[in-house]
C-alpha cells in the first residue's frame, strides 16, 4: 500500500513497522475488551450450567429467589450477549478495521478505555438488577431501563473511530470483503438497538406487538451484528493464514448485500399464528428462509477458498477456530430457516429449538470466529506467544463438543416438544407432562454448558497470562502440531 518506491526489503520493513504501530495504537482498548469479555463469558457459562440444572431440579442449591431459573437464565443470556458478545466483537472490529484501513488509532484512546469501563460497570449493575428481581422481562433486554442509553453511548464511542478509519482508508481492490461487514455492524447495531429500546421502553400500550418487536430485536442483533462480525473475521483471517485469496469477490459482494437487505426483516415469525398482523409474521418467515441465500453465498465462498487447504486448520489455532465457526454459519442459517418456515415452524414454535438457534449463532458461529481472532490478535498486542498448545486444544474441543451438544439436543428437544404439543392424541396431557418429557434434554444442556465452562476457564487463564505479558518469549508461533503437519503449509505460514 505504501507508494514510495524502494527496495523490496526496506518496503517490507516499513510495512512491518507500520503494522506494528497500528497494533500498538489499539492495544489498550482491545486487550481490555477481550479480557473483560472473557470474564463475562466465564460467568455466563457458569450461569448457563446453573440455569439448566434449575430447570430440571428447582430445589438445587436451595429455594433462594436470587438463583431461581427465571433470574439465572436472563442473567446468563445477558452476560453472554452484552458482557462477552458485543464487547469482544468491538475489540475484533476495532483491530481488523485498523489493520485493514492501515490507520493508527490517533486520538481518543482514553475515551475508548473509559467507554469500555463504563460498559462493564453498567452491565455489572444491570445483571445484578436482573438477579435481584428488577428484570424488565423482555428477552435479551432484561436489564433495567437505565442500562440501555449508557450501553448505546459506549458502543458509539467505538463505532465512531472505526467508521472514521474506514473513511480515511486507502481502499485497494478487495478492501471491502471483510471491512464492509465491520462497517455494517457499526451502523446496524445502533439502529436495531435504538429502535427496539425506544419502542419497548418509551412507547406505551404496544400490546402483542411488543413481543414481536422483541423477537425482531433478537434476530436483528444476531443477523446484523453477530453474523457480520463473525463473517468479517472469517473473511479476514482465512486468506490471511492460508495465503489463499478469497475465491470470489462477486460472491462476497452478493453475500454482503443480500444480508444487508434481508437481515432486518426477520424475527416476528416467532409469533406465527399469534395476535400480530399476519403479514408481519409472514414476512419474517419468508426472510428467515431467504437468509439462507447470504448464508449459502458466504459458505460457498469459504468452501471454494479453503478447498484443499483444510489441513492448515490442524496446526493454526486461529484457523481451526475460524474454520469451525465458519462451518457453523450455514448450520445456524438452516436452523433459522427450519424455525421460520411455516411447515416446520408449526412444530418448532415456542420450543427449545429457538434456544438452539441463539446458541449456534452466538456461540457456535460468532464466538468461535472471535476466539480465532483473539488467538491471532493477542500475540501481536502483548508481544508474547500463547503458552500452551494443550490449553488451546482443550478450549477448542470442549467448546466444540459443548456447543454441538447444546445445538443438537435443543433441536431434537424442540422437535419432540412441538410434535407432542401439536399431537391431537395428547389433548388430555397436562403441559407439565411435556416439561417433564424434555428434562433429559435439559440435563444434556447442563452437561454441555459445563464442558463449555471448563473450556472457557482454560481460555480465560491463558488470555490473562498473555495480557500480563507472561506468554512464551519466542519468535515462533504456537501451533497445534499434527502428525501430518509436514504435508501442510510450511511452518511460518500458520499463526
Amino acid at each position, binding site marked *: 500500500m505504501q507508494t514510495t518506491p524502494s527496495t523490496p526489503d526496506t518496503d517490507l520493513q516499513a510495512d512491518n513497522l507500520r503494522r506494528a504501530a497500528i497494533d500498538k495504537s489499539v492495544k489498550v482498548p482491545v486487550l481490555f475488551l477481550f479480557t473483560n469479555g472473557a470474564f463475562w463469558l466465564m460467568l455466563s457459562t457458569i450461569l448457563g450450567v446453573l440455569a439448566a440444572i434449575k430447570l430440571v431440579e428447582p430445589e438445587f442449591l436451595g429455594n433462594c429467589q436470587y438463583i431461581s431459573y427465571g433470574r439465572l437464565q436472563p442473567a446468563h443470556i445477558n452476560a453472554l450477549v452484552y458482557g462477552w458478545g458485543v464487547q469482544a466483537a468491538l475489540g475484533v472490529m476495532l483491530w481488523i478495521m485498523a489493520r485493514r484501513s492501515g490507520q493508527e488509532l490517533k486520538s481518543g484512546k482514553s475515551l475508548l478505555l473509559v467507554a469500555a469501563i463504563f460498559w462493564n460497570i453498567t452491565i455489572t449493575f444491570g445483571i445484578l438488577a436482573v438477579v435481584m428481581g428488577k428484570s424488565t422481562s423482555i428477552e435479551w433486554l432484561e436489564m433495567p431501563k437505565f442500562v440501555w442509553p449508557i450501553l448505546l453511548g459506549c458502543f458509539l464511542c467505538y463505532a465512531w473511530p472505526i467508521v472514521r478509519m474506514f473513511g480515511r482508508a486507502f481502499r*485497494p481492490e478487495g478492501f471491502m470483503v471483510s471491512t464492509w461487514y465491520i462497517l455494517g455492524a457499526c451502523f446496524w447495531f445502533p439502529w436495531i438497538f435504538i429502535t427496539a429500546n425506544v419502542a419497548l421502553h418509551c412507547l406505551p400500550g404496544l400490546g402483542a406487538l411488543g413481543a414481536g418487536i422483541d423477537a425482531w430485536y433478537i434476530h436483528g442483533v444476531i443477523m446484523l451484528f453477530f453474523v457480520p462480525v463473525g463473517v468479517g473475521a472469517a473473511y479476514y483471517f482465512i486468506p490471511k493464514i492460508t495465503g489463499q485469496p478469497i475465491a470470489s*469477490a462477486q460472491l462476497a459482494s452478493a453475500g454482503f448485500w443480500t444480508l444487508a437487505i434481508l437481515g432486518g426483516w426477520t424475527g416476528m415469525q416467532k409469533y406465527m399464528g*399469534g395476535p*400480530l398482523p399476519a403479514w408481519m409474521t409472514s414476512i419474517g418467515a419468508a426472510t428467515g428462509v431467504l437468509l439462507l441465500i447470504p448464508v449459502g453465498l458466504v459458505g460457498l465462498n469459504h468452501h471454494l477458498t479453503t478447498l484443499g487447504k483444510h489441513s492448515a486448520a490442524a496446526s493454526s489455532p486461529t484457523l481451526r477456530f475460524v474454520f469451525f465457526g465458519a462451518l457453523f454459519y450455514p448450520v445456524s442459517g438452516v436452523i433459522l430457516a427450519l424455525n421460520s418456515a411455516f411447515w416446520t415452524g408449526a412444530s418448532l414454535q415456542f420450543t427449545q429449538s429457538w434456544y438452539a438457534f441463539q446458541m449456534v449463532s452466538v456461540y457456535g458461529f460468532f464466538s468461535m470466529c472471535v476466539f480465532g481472532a483473539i488467538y491471532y490478535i493477542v500475540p501481536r498486542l502483548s508481544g508474547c506467544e500463547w503458552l500452551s498448545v494443550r490449553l488451546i486444544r482443550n478450549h477448542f474441543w470442549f467448546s466444540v463438543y459443548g456447543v454441538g451438544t447444546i445445538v443438537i439436543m435443543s433441536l431434537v428437544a424442540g422437535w419432540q416438544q412441538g410434535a407432542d404439543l401439536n399431537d391431537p392424541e395428547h389433548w388430555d396431557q397436562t403441559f407439565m407432562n411435556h416439561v417433564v418429557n424434555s428434562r433429559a434434554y435439559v440435563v444434556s444442556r447442563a452437561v454441555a454448558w459445563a464442558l463449555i465452562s471448563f473450556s472457557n476457564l482454560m481460555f480465560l487463564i491463558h488470555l490473562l497470562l498473555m495480557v500480563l505479558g507472561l506468554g512464551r518469549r519466542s519468535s515462533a508461533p504456537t501451533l497445534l502440531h499434527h502428525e501430518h503437519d509436514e504435508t501442510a503449509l510450511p511452518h511460518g505460514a500458520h499463526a
Partner: protein
Amino acid sequence: MSASAHPDSTDLDRLHSAVKREKADLAPESQPAPLWAMFLLMLVAIIAGGQLGPMTGGWSFDVSNPFALISGGGDPRPGGGGAGDALDPFALAMKKGASGYSVCGGCHQGNGGGLPGQFPPLTKSEYVLGGTERLIRIVQHGLTGPVTVNGQSFNTPGGMQPFGGAMSSQDLANVLTFIRNSWGNEATMITKEMVQKVRDEEKRASQWTIAELLPYAEKNVPGEIPAGPGATAAPAAAAAPAAK
C-alpha cells in the same frame, strides 16, 4: 510488556515477530460459482416465497390469522373450521362431547364406570338416562348429599361441583349427549337450547340434593331435537361414535 517508545526495527525483531511472519492482505479472485449452488439458492427463494402468498392475510393490519385466505374458512384445524359441518348434529355433539368429557373423567373415569364407594358410575345410571331436566340441573348446579346409583350408595364429601359457570351451554349439551350415548348408554340428544332453557329458569347458587330433584326425575326439557340418530337414540347409530 512492550516497548515504551515507538518501535524501531530492533524492537520489531524482538517483539513483533508475529507481525513479521504475517502474510500480506490478498485481493480476492473471481472464481466462477458452481451452477448447482445457484440452482440451490433459487430453490431457497421458491420455498421462502411459499411463506408469503395467502399467509400474508392480504397485507391487512386487521388479519392476524395466517390461514385466513386458505380453504377451510381460516381455521387452522385439520379440515378447517367447517369440518364439523359435514357431520350430523348428533355425531358432532358426540365428537365434541368426548373432548369435553375430560373434565368429568377425573372422577367418573374414562369408561364412565366411576369409582366404587367414591364416585357414582354414569353407565346405566338412571340419573343419566332418565329425565333430561334432572340431569341438566345436576351438572348445571352440582349435587350434594347421599345418592344411590345402580344399587350402590355414594356420599362423596363435597358432592359434585357445579359446572354451569365454567362451561357454555353448548359445551354442556355436547358432554351430556356424549354421556347419554356412550359405554352402552342410549338416550336422546340434549341440545344447547335445552340447557339454556334450564339456565334461564333456575338461578340457584347452592348444590341440589336428591330429594330436591325428585320432581324433575322423569321430566324432559321440551325442545326440538335435530332429526337423526340422536332424536330416537337408535342403537346402531349411537354405538358407532361411542366406540371412539
